[in-house]
């Protein structure tokens, strides 16, 4: 049962390992001659202003909220997609109604200006 997850496990290990390896190699092999300027966080060559974490505008939150709703839609459609061929026309119409109802919401969000980045 669990064997099908081995690729995912391998990928997890590989990606984390590679990241760790690169950082570690950089530390071990590279010469380390820190100057004040080098220790400043790198921000496209500019001198950084203020702390790294600062308050973000609420727009991000709003968009994330919309994303969450459509994300849930995807989760509902996922099991249907797995068997969509077997379920034939009936299932297709089902899913179509499901999407149509949410499409109304999408149109509303669009027209209501929710997708604009004011």
């Amino acid at each position, binding site marked *: 049962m669990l064997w099908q997850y081995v690729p995912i496990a391998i990928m997890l290990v590989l990606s984390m390992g590679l990241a760790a390896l690169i950082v570690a190699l950089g530390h071990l092999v590279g010469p380390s001659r820190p100057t004040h300027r080098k220790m400043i966080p790198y921000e496209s060559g500019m001198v950084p202003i203020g702390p790294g974490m600062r308050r973000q505008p609420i727009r991000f939150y709003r968009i994330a909220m919309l994303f969450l709703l459509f994300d849930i839609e995807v989760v509902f459609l996922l099991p249907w997609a797995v068997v969509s061929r077997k379920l*034939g026309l*009936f299932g297709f119409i089902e899913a179509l109604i499901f999407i149509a*109802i949410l499409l*109304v*919401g999408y*149109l*509303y969000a669009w*027209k*209501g200006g929710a997708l604009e980045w004011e």
Partner: protein
Amino acid sequence: MTVPVTWQDVAALLPEFFLVVWASALLLLDVFWIREKRTTAWLSALGFVVALVLAVGQMGRAPLLAFRGMVIADAFSVFLVALFALSGLVGILLAQDYLARNGIERGEFYVLLMFSVVGMMLMARVADLVMIFLALELFSLPLYVMTGFARPRADSEEAALKYFLLGAFASGFMAFGIALVYGATSTTSLPHMVDVIQAGEADLALLTAGAALVLTGLGFKIATVPFHMWTPDVYHGAPSPVSGFMAATAKMAGFAALLRLFVLVFPVVADLTPVLWALAALSMVLGNVAAIAQRNIKRLLAYSSIAHAGYMLSAAVAFADPHLGPQAVAAILFYLVAYVLATFGAWGVVILLERRIGQEGLLLEDYAGLSRQYPGLAAAMAVFMLSFIGVPPTLGFFGKFYLFRVVLDAGFVGLALIGVLTSLVSAYYYLRVVMLMYMKPGEPIVRREPRVQATVLAAAALTLFLGLTAASSLYAWATEAILRFG
């Protein structure tokens, strides 16, 4: 491949389907074409009228389990669905002028109201635990938003947040309870559950725990003590038409599912009888006693709604008795009709007297002298108050009469006594409103809003007229709406 959905299935849910389609279309019309929000209001009112006609058209048909046992169209659900469609219509009549005059009228309000009503209708139709949860969420979510509809106002926002957080918590209880009930019976379908329980294959301890948690979730929606904490603040902070709509319909929806579950499926968990007894008694006592101290009419009506939830719950205490179950259902349905009429009417009066949103005209003193200048309105308000107390010619009297009769038949003399005594207590604060309107001089300022006025007068006329002439036939009608599967 099995037989696809038949027309019979669709016909069983016709009012709901129609409302969903209508609401969706209205949402798009509202953002794309309609410029006057009033048009949206009228169109949604039209939608409710059509839904009402469709629901009435379903009356008298044989009970039908549709969509493979997900929903049921029986006399009980059709009765309530028609009532919900009517309530939606009244909700719009009450809300439109109020929203417009306070500058918060938006098309979304009507669309959300329609979705909420669809959820309530499904609440009356449920024949499956999955549907109960979805219907509960579908009617609650729009209510949370509608509570916060006077959005820039802090008290409205606060009410919405409070309602939402506690509501989400209650949904959690509900979901957990549903999971336990499923664990105990290994089915979510209520008719199957009845079979499993009768065959003695259910895990009773688990079922009792699940039923108790479901009761907690529903108790929050119908606002019984100890799950009532949110009620005064939410009813106070929400725009008045929303409070009125909520007070009337959310309670109906909660009771619909509660009756369906407890009378039909859970009689086996008779262990919960004392719990229901305590909830009912506490609600009646605390709701009525706390209402005495209120000076704000919205808070007074909120506590009074808690008390009325207690009265209705007191009949539901008899759920475990197979002979009394149907009678309890009939008594509660009858009481619901009386309660809904008086609630809509009383909130209509509140809307007419509220000068600025949530600001002036909400204290009891503001009702002083109403009879002098607006005798019709004052008389209507007096009728609602008397109906709330249960004074004879009104519908409320018959409601309490049938309720207490069931409670007495079930042998809960103490509970009936508490009910009668707390009714006497309630007379104090209800009559104070009447006294202020008729005895004290004052200069009340009332809005001229014909739709709201017409609604108030119609509700008063029905409360009186049905009480005088048609109470027994209405009760007989409610009795026919007993619950059955298949």
